[in-house]
């Protein structure tokens, strides 16, 4: 049998690997469907044939929970992530930035742009804005922000040299040799970046529970870690 897992797009590499492992181990298939968390959540609201949902955004999981679409008690915080400030290929090698309330990010940017995901809509952008705000940097930086529709697009803006710097997930930055991580935002500068997971009411079955259990198994955690994620609760 197959189990359909709706997963935030940024989980693709890790989930593909886990699905392959799972199949090798059990012979059963995990069918992942990747898209933005908001899309997936809406589809679940409309009765999508998914059994498990992993969101990059606790907000959408809250919505589904309120709608009563989750199997009670199955929601867990599965993964953690952090956001980092990155520089592109154009930046001089000795550029180093330490993020703090005194960082003059606006000056560092010059007439360049700071690439972020949509700061009011996409999780990575929301976290980034929260971090900059709490550090008191937002007001000076805001006019220089270029918002992309997702983290990868923001990463690409930096990687291609279009924007000198950007704010992205650590997982994304780690995988792109074009960019260099300047610094990680302090964990307390923004709400914890967690990826909640849950079993959906329509999809509850033994098999689903087995897959869900596998996702929290050590084997799966190792894979997630290898892709740069943190494990919630560790």
């Amino acid at each position, binding site marked *: 049998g197959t189990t359909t897992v709706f997963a935030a797009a940024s989980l693709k590499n890790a989930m593909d690997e886990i699905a392959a492992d799972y199949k090798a181990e059990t012979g059963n298939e995990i069918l992942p469907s990747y898209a933005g968390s908001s899309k997936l959540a809406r589809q679940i609201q409309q009765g999508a044939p998914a059994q498990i949902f992993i969101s990059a955004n606790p907000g959408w999981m809250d919505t589904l929970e309120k709608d009563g679409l989750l199997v009670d008690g199955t929601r867990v915080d599965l993964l953690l992530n952090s956001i980092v400030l990155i520089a592109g290929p154009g930046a001089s090698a000795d550029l180093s930035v330490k993020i703090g309330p005194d960082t003059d990010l606006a000056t560092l940017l010059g007439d360049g742009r700071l690439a972020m995901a949509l700061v009011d809509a996409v999780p990575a952008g929301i976290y980034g804005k929260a971090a900059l705000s709490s550090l008191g940097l937002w007001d000076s930086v805001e006019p220089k922000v270029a918002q992309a529709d997702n983290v990868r697009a923001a990463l690409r803006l930096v990687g291609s040299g279009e924007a000198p710097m950007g704010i992205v997930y650590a997982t994304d930055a780690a*995988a792109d040799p074009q960019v260099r991580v300047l610094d990680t935002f302090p964990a307390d500068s923004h709400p914890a970046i967690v990826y909640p997971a849950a079993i959906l009411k329509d999809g509850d079955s033994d098999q689903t529970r087995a897959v869900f259990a596998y996702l929290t198994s050590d084997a799966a955690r190792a894979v997630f870690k290898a892709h740069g994620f943190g494990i919630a609760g560790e």
Partner: protein
Amino acid sequence: MTDWLGPAEWQAVALSLKVSLWAIGLSLPIGILAAYALARWDFPGKQLLNGIIHLPLILPPVVTGYLLLLSFGRRGPVGSFLYEWFGLIFAFRWTGAALAASIMAFPLMVRSIRLAVESVDPKLEQAAATLGAPRLWVFFTVTLPLILPGVIAGAILGFAKAMGEFGATITFVSNIPGQTQTLPSAIYTFLQVPGGETQAMRLVLVSVTVAMGALAISEILARRAAKRVSGA
């Protein structure tokens, strides 16, 4: 080639072709009818129909997909009706992808065909009528052959659009490999993850190749049709 693309990717290619061909095949007759009606008839609500046909072009695809999800989804009014009466399910099936593709391609098809209809000289249709041919016969033996270049152009535009459609599809039917993961969805997914660009570009290449092939065929067909129409 089989090595070059993984099975999931081949699946996406096959699915995209299936979805696009069905999308065009089924919507073409309706498109021709709509184009003919807009070009030749006057009826109340004509401008409204024209506007509705253009909507998918005007709206961001995500919105179209969202509206499709709301109306054709399992819980949506149209979706539940179709399911109860005809057993038709669109949501999260390849049929839904085809529906999304055909709706996105529809305005392109209709415009092309409508232009072609408008350039057919009604005098020829009148001549056919004086020879005793009823309207429908005139349509199939005179009008349709004469608008064929426009129909082909519309079909190929629509096919290309269907092959490239992504926003509405992923929003409406999600991105489930083998079921609703079309080429563009697969490309999108690759672009979402670190290091996915190369794989994405490989799929882009496949997509471009398929579409170019279709384009070339359509050009040949259209040229042949146009030659017939010019009467030489």
